[in-house]
Structure formats: C-alpha cells, structure tokens
C-alpha cells in the first residue's frame, strides 16, 4: 500500500529488524508515512511500537533495515533527523520541578529559536495552560502534563512529531483533550506518527493505520480499507458493522496461530 500522493513519504521504514538478546521484537517492519498525514502504529503491549519510535528518534540502533525521516537516514544523518522531529509521550518526559513555562523556555533555548519567552507564552495560550504556566509541573493533572508535552514538541516547528502512546494512563476527559491537540497538529500540516494500543484512538485520529504484530506490519491501510478486510456485514435481525476492534482481534488471532508467517491470510477464516 504505497502513499497515493506524488510526494516522497516523510517517514520511510524498510525491513527494520531489532532483537533484544534472543527476543526478536521487529522482524522486518515496512511502512511509509505521507507528508501531513496522521499514521497510527497499532499493536498490543510489547508488540514493538516503542522500539520502532526509538529507532526513528535516533535513540536506538536497528539490527537491520533502513529508516529515513524527512529524507535523512536515522543512522548516517542522525543530527539532521533530530532537527526534523520532536518526540513526546510515554518515554519522553517533562521536567516536574520546573514550571510549565520554564519547560517550554528550556526546549525553546535548546532548539535555538528566537525569543523563547514569547514562544512559551504563545504555546501556553494555545494549549489553555496560560493560568498554569507559572506552576510547577508536578502539580499538573495528567491531561495538562500531556498537553504541555505536546506543546513542547511544537517548538521549532519540526515537520514530524512522534507521539508514543500519548494517552496511556489518562482519564477519558484528558484523552479527549489530547486527541483535540493531535487534531490541531494535523490541521497545521504536521506529520504525526502515533503509537497506541487503543483501537478507538487510531480510529479517531489516524488517516492510515498500521497494525504491528509478531514483529511485522501485518496490515496497513485506511480505516475503511481495514474494515473491508472482513466479510461485509450480514443482514440478519440487526446490521452490525465490524468495528476496528473486530478487525484487530481477527487479524492478530489469525497470525499468532501460524507463527506470524501469514501476512496475507487476514480474515480468511469464514
């Protein structure tokens, strides 16, 4: 499933492999992300989503395969790659002892942008944190913290943002706040690579969804394409469209039985 636009993909991952000791986490991961789109990497805990993000973020070296971000190779042009993205979420934290504003100023200074203070104030406004800007982050709620985290990633206008499990551990209200923030990012033309274990999150936010299972992307497509993989709904007494959850569990269930070898045997059970 190639990108439909004529432009080169902003993220291109080919044959990515990574093992921890004998545990093969990634066994040839391939996917492209088109510029300006939201791509969700969906998978269960331990599927290797974070490993993919860490490799793309130049924090981890792959054992095999290649990955480029914004046209730069993550190994040979790591410094250029780091100019091109921001990482936020599960493993990229905010500083709890500093205030929200100080966190933003810190990142602005490290990204060498002009007038860090004004940028910080602008982002506090945009993410409804203006009142909380002078308070220590340790006093923030989970939702405020993630919003601050996302605001920090916008500094310097990187073309790509990696959101690693942005809503894990958040309450429903905070999740909605983060979703709103992600939609705004997409509206500004930023390319977003999102990892999540929540199916509805992918359904809500993503233009395309890749399901990572058994160390490979077993399916990659739009929500409509993914739904089409299952037989169409039968009309009995009620009509029931398969949800993404049905699709996911059917796909994952299939491949786990035959050892992950059957990339194409999706939904062929009936």
């Amino acid at each position, binding site marked *: 499933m190639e990108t439909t636009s004529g432009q080169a993909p902003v993220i291109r991952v080919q044959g990515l492999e990574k093992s921890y000791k004998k545990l093969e986490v990634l066994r040839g991961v391939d996917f492209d992300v088109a510029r300006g789109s939201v791509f969700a990497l969906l998978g269960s805990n331990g599927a290797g989503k974070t490993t993919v993000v860490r490799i793309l973020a130049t924090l981890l*070296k792959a054992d095999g395969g290649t990955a480029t971000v914004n046209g730069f190779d993550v190994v040979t042009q790591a410094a250029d790659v*780091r100019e091109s993205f921001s990482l936020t979420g599960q493993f990229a934290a905010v500083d709890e002892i*500093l205030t929200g504003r100080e966190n933003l100023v810190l990142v602005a200074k490290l990204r060498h942008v002009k007038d860090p203070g004004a940028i910080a104030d602008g982002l506090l406004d945009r993410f409804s944190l203006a009142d909380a800007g002078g308070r220590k982050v340790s006093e923030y709620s989970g939702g405020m913290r993630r919003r601050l985290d996302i605001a920090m990633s916008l500094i310097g206008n990187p073309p790509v943002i990696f959101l690693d499990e942005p809503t894990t551990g958040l309450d429903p209200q905070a999740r909605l706040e983060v979703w709103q923030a992600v939609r705004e990012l997409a509206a500004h033309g930023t390319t977003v690579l999102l990892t999540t274990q929540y199916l509805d999150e992918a359904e809500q936010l993503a233009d395309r969804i890749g399901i990572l299972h058994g160390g490979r992307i077993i399916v990659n497509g739009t929500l409509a394409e993914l739904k089409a993989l299952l037989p169409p709904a039968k009309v009995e007494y009620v009509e029931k469209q398969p949800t993404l959850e049905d699709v996911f569990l059917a796909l994952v269930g299939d491949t786990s039985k035959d050892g992950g070898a059957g990339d194409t045997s999706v939904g062929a059970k009936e």
Partner: protein
Amino acid sequence: MNKHFFGDTAVLLGRSLRHITRSLDTIITTTIMPIAFMLLFVYVFGGAITTGTGNYVNYLLPGILLITIASGISYTAFRLFLDMKGGIFERFQSMPIARSSVLWAHVLTSLVANLISIVVVVLVALLMGFRTGAGVLAWLAVAGILMLFTLALTWIAVIPGLSATSADGASAFSYPIIFLPFISSAFVPTATMPGPVRAFAENQPVTSIVNAIRDLFTQQPVGSTIWIALAWCVGILIVAYIFAMAAYRRKIS
C-alpha cells in the same frame, strides 16, 4: 564538537541549578552527616585523641570536607538517575543539541552543589573553633584540590547514575567512599595503627589529600604530598571518566 556545545551545556546547567535551588534541603541533608561526624569527633572522641596539634577541629576538617564531597556525589548519581528514569534524558537526546551537554550539565551541577555543601561545613567548623592563617594562595590551592576531588568522584557517580536500576542502587556506591577517610590520617595519625592497616592507610588517596590540605591550612611546607594528592585525583578522574563514557555510550547507542 557540536557548535552549540557550550550554549546547550549552559542552558542545561541552568535547569539543574534550578532543581538545586528549589530543593536546597537535599544539599543541606548531605552536610548533616559530615557535620554530625565533626561534632562527634570533636566533642565526644576528640578529648581522647592525641594528634600532636592543639586544635582538633583544625586537624579534623580536611577529612570532614572529603566526607562531605563523598556524601554529596551520591546526589549527583541520584539526580542523573532520576533524569534517566523519568525520560527527560531521552527527550534531550532526541533533540538537535550537543548530546554530551546533558552529561556535562550534571557534572558542573555536581561541582556547584558540592561547593555549597563545603561552604556550609566550613562555616560550621569556624563556629566550632576552626582557625587558619592560610593566605589567599593556600585557600586557592585547597579549593583546587577539593574541586579536582569532586570532579573525580563525580565521574565515578555518573557510572551508577547512568546504569543503576533503582534509586538505592544509584546512591549506594558512595558508602564505601564515605568510609574511606576513617582508614586514613583524617581522624587520627596513622602512626598509631597496626602494621597492615597502617600500610593501607598511608597509601590510599584520602591520606595524601587530607595531609596536603592540612599542610596548606597550617601553613606547613606541602612538599611532595600535594603532588601525590593531585596525582591520585587526576588518576581517579581519568579512570572514572573512561568508564563513565563507556557507560554513556552504552546508553545512547
């Protein structure tokens, strides 16, 4: 070297210094143990210890300062560990900055934090009767030795700070270092110790460093002692730096 190295290090140093000034209690805590030792040895054991000098506080202070640093660097390891565990270290590493700035900011912060603790301990010692006729040059020499010692121990602290799996593990390494001055000339003259203990005491780094600082404070000629002390500091510094950088490379690759 990245063109932003100094700027980025300064920004990150500012961040760590904010951490310190917002939790001054952690620095005060590191001075409690050395001050307690000082009180204990001066007012409880001191009367029974013969050092050949009139003022036992004067005799004791150099060793207490080394204990202060040894206790202070456990917080260096702890601060680094928290950054590793909390994920902010990875955030910095994923940004377009001079990557080693993250580590250097911690090292410089350690120097500042230990300087504050040392000033606190020296002030308490002055209250307890510490007196010296040392001139500016001698004080500068003392400050230089202490700074080099702090730097050497800080690079040791970086190793568990980067690789520990728990907060306790990150700071436990400092206990043997805190204990080292007890088997040295810091509290009693080594001449009273039995053979093997004396041999160890006289040939371990703390004794030469303590003696050099003591000679500077009492305006004695320092002779070769100070060079032995400096050699120990530089030697520890280089070895610790090599191991710390190896641990660092393991973390970022």
